[in-house]
């Protein structure tokens, strides 16, 4: 493997992803745009807790911590998911350039992974900002936090790997639906949001949704992320970590094989360049 060539490619694709994300406006407007949305989302969901606190007349710091960390860390996953899945739709429907990128890079899968990198970096910074602003907003005392940097690093890395794999799997489905790429991304994001211990424990869901929750690595990842922020957060850390690692490996293998299959199939039926407009 030519490592230098690979690094050049990764750099070029990441550079392009950054340009596509940011070059539509001046830097300060871009920063504003990047911050306004997640902070508005923070307010939107933080007030769910605040509305409850007003209605019930009592605070619940554990619930506040749970919700805010959920919203904050979801930025990392949501960003990465969107950054990869949206590419197929955009390059095929919008720029009509998918075919050129397809033939110029050794694998479409690799291309998609590279395109997602910038989004994860952005998501990481947004996570930190939302945590820093969100916890005080709901009255949570930041001095109560006892972060574990090592666990945090591992959690971020595993998050990148499994979420990328999940995004690759979902992107392979969007190869067959020229119009609904964005909705596929939204759908997968919504599923993770609902079943992934983001706003509430997944055990609260009806029993028929539990298998979906168990299949996705989001639950374990979220709880481990919370633990990385406060080691007093009571979970079975070794068990969850083992489960997360195992699921990540399965996702990597499955998504790689599935994508190869879908890639072949879409070319067989001649739908790689299919666009639609209405």
């Amino acid at each position: 493997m030519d490592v230098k060539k690979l690094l050049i490619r990764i750099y070029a694709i990441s550079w392009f992803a950054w340009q596509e994300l940011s070059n539509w406006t001046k830097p300060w407007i871009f920063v504003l745009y990047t911050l306004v949305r997640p902070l508005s989302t923070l307010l939107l969901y933080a007030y769910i807790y605040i509305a409850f606190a007003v209605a019930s007349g009592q605070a619940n710091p554990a619930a506040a911590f749970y919700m805010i960390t959920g919203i904050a860390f979801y930025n990392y996953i949501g960003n990465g998911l969107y950054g990869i899945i949206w590419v197929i739709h955009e390059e095929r429907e919008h720029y009509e350039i998918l075919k050129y990128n397809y033939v110029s890079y050794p694998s479409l899968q690799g291309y998609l992974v590279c395109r997602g990198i910038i989004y994860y970096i952005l998501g990481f910074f947004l996570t930190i900002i939302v945590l820093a602003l969100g916890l005080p907003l709901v009255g949570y005392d930041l001095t109560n936090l006892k972060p574990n940097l090592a666990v945090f690093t591992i959690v971020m890395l595993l998050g990148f790997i499994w979420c990328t794999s999940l995004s690759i799997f979902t992107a392979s489905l969007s190869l067959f639906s020229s119009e609904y790429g964005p909705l596929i991304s939204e759908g997968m994001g919504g599923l993770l949001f609902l079943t992934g211990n983001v706003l509430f424990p997944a055990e609260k869901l009806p029993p028929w949704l539990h298998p979906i929750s168990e299949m996705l690595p989001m639950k374990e990842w979220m709880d481990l992320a919370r633990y990385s922020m406060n080691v007093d957060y009571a979970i079975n850390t070794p068990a969850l970590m083992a489960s997360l690692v195992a699921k990540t490996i399965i996702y990597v293998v499955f998504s790689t094989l599935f994508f190869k299959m879908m890639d072949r199939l879409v070319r067989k039926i001649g739908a790689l360049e299919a666009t639609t407009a209405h």
Partner: protein
Amino acid sequence: MTYAVETIDLTRVFKRGKSTIKALDNVNISIRKGEIFGLLGPNGAGKTTLIRILATLLLPTSGEAYVNGYDVIKEPDKVREIINIVSGGERAGYGILTVRENLWYYSQLYGYGWREGWKKVDELINLLDMKDFANVRLNRLSTGMIQKYNLARGLINDPKILFLDEPTLGLDVEVARYIRKIIKNLVRENPDKTILLTTHYMAEAEQLCDRIAIIHKGRIIAEGTSDDLKHMVSKEKIFKVEVRGIVGALDYIRKINGVKALTYKGDIVTGVTSIRLVLSDNDLISKIVEALNEKRFKVLSVVKVEPTLEDVFLKLVGARLVE
């Protein structure tokens, strides 16, 4: 007299960041009703910019433009009622809808109403021989079929003035010939129709147009019938010389007194270079052959040719129309 299209000192400047591009520079044209008027020029000459202004999609920086007597700036609504555009090389349309449905939609935009709209659609499908794919979705059509659809869309409102912007671009010979035939018949059968056709294909301009204007870097550099324009170079002696080998810049030939213009094109497959020369005197050709021999190029043939619009362009601009 009210012209179908008239522009007076029309100028359009684009600002892109720090740079400025003068796409049109004091363009003055007058197109009579019932004419097919050609605008010939290379890519980037300003042809499409002119069409966009006349179609009310773009405002000029200065100057005036009138379509059928209506000011394109002050009376755009009146202009839109009587014009249409067909552009080449485009895939505009709703891919998820069939040809019939797409055409029906545009009929509504011109105020046809339900029944009249479908009737008009059927007329156009028959006119342009699209029955075989009328009920096929646009995103499944070939380039030639899409261009037929585009032409049908351009005729949906029976426009008095039709702007055809490189309508045969990217089409194969058969479809291009068909489109040209339709264009020619349109005006023959409807003498009140006027067509402004932009192209960089000389043969197309010569075949279709009553009058032609040559545009280069935003300026009209010549205007007249095809014969009028060729007459500009009729006194010139035009020769085509073929040599074996791929030649260099040929500066040594340009320096010969009496060589007015020169272009060449090498074919790396056959290994032959074709040189086109505009000379002031027939006798100069022997000097040129000599000069080529001195450089050890074998001269395969020397032919005196009739002037074409390419030569007109070459004389006026000093470069080929089509590179």
